């Protein structure tokens, strides 16, 4: 394992001075604890001093550093890996969890870990969990159970747009044009994912509205069939 890390220019590092860093480097502590400390110190480079959390500003800074746009799906994947609870914020525990799992204790390692992270998320066994996480992550208020149509459309495009482009585009179009639903809940969100995975498109031949599909999908299919005529 490569020892030592060179700090990238442009980083502010107020709380750790170079002599302390040398001290740590020279001490013969376990690699693990060193890694943990680096992870922690990385955390504090982005965290907000008063709240002790990385806030949206900090996240934006992080994004700039790892050269990923803050609306990129990979940030969401990172949040998933961290099991982050609140959108726009990372706590120390979450940060530690995520970066430790990725074995990334520097910005460049973090950046390099992203492609593997993406592969991991896209594995079928994980993707379903990621998909439902994406919904929950967007629930900002305490008792909130559903998300408005506008946001859902964006989220859907972000999360599923590359995997099921046709279905997503059509569903988004449907949602924007209909009047029955102003919000979408978790059940409906998951239902759509099942729909994409199980129903053949564009034939829709195996869709049965008398089964337990959420009503919004029954209406979507009816809309599609009308459109196809």
């Amino acid at each position, binding site marked *: 394992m490569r020892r030592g890390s060179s700090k990238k220019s442009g980083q502010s590092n107020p709380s750790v001075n170079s002599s302390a860093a040398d001290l740590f480097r020279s001490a013969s502590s376990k690699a693990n604890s060193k890694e943990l400390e680096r992870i922690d110190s990385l955390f504090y480079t982005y965290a907000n001093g008063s709240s002790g959390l990385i806030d949206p500003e900090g996240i934006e800074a992080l994004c700039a550093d790892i050269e990923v746009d803050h609306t990129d799906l990979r940030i969401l994947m990172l949040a998933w890996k961290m099991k982050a609870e609140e959108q726009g914020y990372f706590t120390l525990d979450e940060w530690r969890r995520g970066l430790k799992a990725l074995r990334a204790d520097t910005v460049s390692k973090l950046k390099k870990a992203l492609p593997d992270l993406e592969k991991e998320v896209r594995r079928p066994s994980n993707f379903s969990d990621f998909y439902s996480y994406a919904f929950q992550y967007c629930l900002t208020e305490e008792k909130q*159970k559903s998300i408005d149509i506008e946001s859902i459309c964006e989220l859907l495009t972000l999360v599923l747009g590359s995997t099921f482009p046709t279905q997503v585009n059509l569903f988004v179009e449907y949602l924007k044009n209909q009047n029955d639903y102003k919000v979408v*809940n978790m*059940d*409906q969100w998951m239902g759509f994912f099942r729909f994409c995975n199980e129903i053949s498109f564009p034939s829709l031949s195996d869709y049965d509205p*008398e*089964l*337990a599909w*959420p*009503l919004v999908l*029954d209406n979507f299919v009816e809309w599609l069939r009308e459109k196809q005529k």
Partner: protein
Amino acid sequence: MQVTLGCLRNAYNMVLQKFGEKLYSGLVTTMTSHLRQISQSIESAQGEIFLEELNRKWVEHNKALLMIRDILMYMDRTFVPSSRKTPVHELGLNLWRDVVIHSNKTQSRLLDTLIDLVLKERNGEVINRGLMRNLIKMLMDLGLSVYQNDFEKHFIEVSKDFYCCESQKFIESCNCGDYLKKAERRLNEEMERVSHYLDPSSESKIIKVVETEMIENHMHTLVHMENSGLVSMFVDDKYEDLERIYNLFRRVPSGLTIVKDVMTSFIRDTGKQLIMDPERLKDPVDFVQRLLDLKDKYDKAITLAFNNDKTFQNALNSAFEYFINLNARSPEFISLFVDDKLRRGLKGVGEEDVEIVLDKVMMLFRYLQEKDMFEKYYKQHLAKRLLSGKTVSDEAERSLIVKLKTECGYQFTSKLEGMFTDMKTSYDMMQGFLACHGAELGDSPTLSVQVLTTGSWPTQSSPQCNLPSEILGVCEKFRSYYLGAHSGRRLSWQANMGNADLKATFGKGQKHELNVSTYQMCVLMLFNNADRLSCKEIEQATAIPMPDLKRCLQSLALVKGKNVLRKEPMSKDIAEDDAFFFNDKFTSKLFKVKIGTVVAQRESEPENIETRQRVEEDRKPQIEAAIVRVMKSRKILEHNNIIAEVTKQLQARFLPNPVVIKKRIESLIEREFLERDKVDRKMYRYLA
């Protein structure tokens, strides 16, 4: 042959001396040759003599056989069995069969002649039945297979052809009723024929032929015959024809099914036409009466002509259930019908006849899928009847409630009964009030109050309106009296439900008594102190909501014969600046003029839509409760099964829409009463 004692002894001796074989074969030879002669003589008989000759010779042969058997009795008992020979009598019959009957010429001639006679008889000629009977019996005596092969088989074949042709001929020339009469006649004929000269075993066979050829093969043609088929029989109440078709068609497979199906689809179409006819729908009472008449018509047909057949009863019921529910306003109309009967239709009608009408209403009620809609309207209409005092018979009202309770359970009628209780309590309350305060009331207007328990009565929140000062005093007295007896309760005057009698004097001194609604009273009393009032001014003075006020002013100023107010300008609509005047020139032939409308009426379209929305809203919690009940007991259930169970639970009140059920399930999932099973997405799981 002459029998002598000598013959007997000789025969006996021959057998004893072991000459049985010789005796037996001698018998065979002799008889055979004798029979050959007879056969020839029969064959040569001309024309009609043939049968008679055959018969005569047969009779003789039988006599002879008896004698021979007697003579050869010893041989018959000893030699014959031990050498396994055919017994004498049987031998005699077999020889007759083989030599005489089965001689080439005779066999076919006999058959042809017999058949010919039958056909003649079918064509109306008289034949010698005795002769026929004897000869048929002869064939039977010769053995069942002889009868069947030599006669019956061909008889049946020929009959088939005969009836095939005849039925074809009749179908082309007769109408349904006449055809059926002819078929019935032929059936009877054939049965009679069998009983007279054929073997009983042929009866079922020949009957089957007639049934198949005349009825079964033409079932559809008959039933659908234009102007005379089943449908026109129903239309013209041809009970005799209907009875005949029932009795004939029940003999053949699927016969009654066709009758039942045609009847069902005709009733459905008739009903559907009735339901869709916009003219009919304008008068709900007439509409329902027509439904009842239609039911009576078919009930009568089934009783008189179809033997009260249960499958037909069921078909009638399902047809009615089908088309009554096609009209979304059926519940309302049936309630209006009941309202009409209980308000005036049953006036003077005897108790038993009242029960009959109410039972008929219940019968229609049972067909309704949306019983909760009916309940809503029934409640509204009942309230109006009770409050306006316009019910023909208290017993009739109560009797109907009891019937509804029996049908639907206590919950359906508990509120209705509450309404009756309120009426009684109010009456007692008024008596108490008058006893207590009667003296002081003196010249005040006579007040009659009904205190309604909120929740039992159909709710229509009535914003307060300003009651005329003339009655405020007595109203307050009542209020304090009541609250004195029942502290802790709250009373609010329902200005949209009351009525008043006003004594009015017009321009030339003519006096009338006006029966008006509370709102109308408030408006009219204003004119005691003002000559001219604008609509807006009236609104401000009375605080009646504008839409209600407009309706009220319309009824006071724009209805011919009831225009106690005059409006300027004279337009049809009410504008807020319009001016109103007391109509000095009002005239009416009647002393008592009724202007208020508290009578139940057919709802307008917008009102109808609103009622339906309210009912749909009421149904949502009921559906949810049913879903939760089902899931609580089953714990995990598949989607289709939930739909089925919930539908079953609710069907006594209404038929839930599967889409609505699904929506409720999703709502319950969101509120975490249920969840989808993680493994099998078709299943739902109850969350305790």
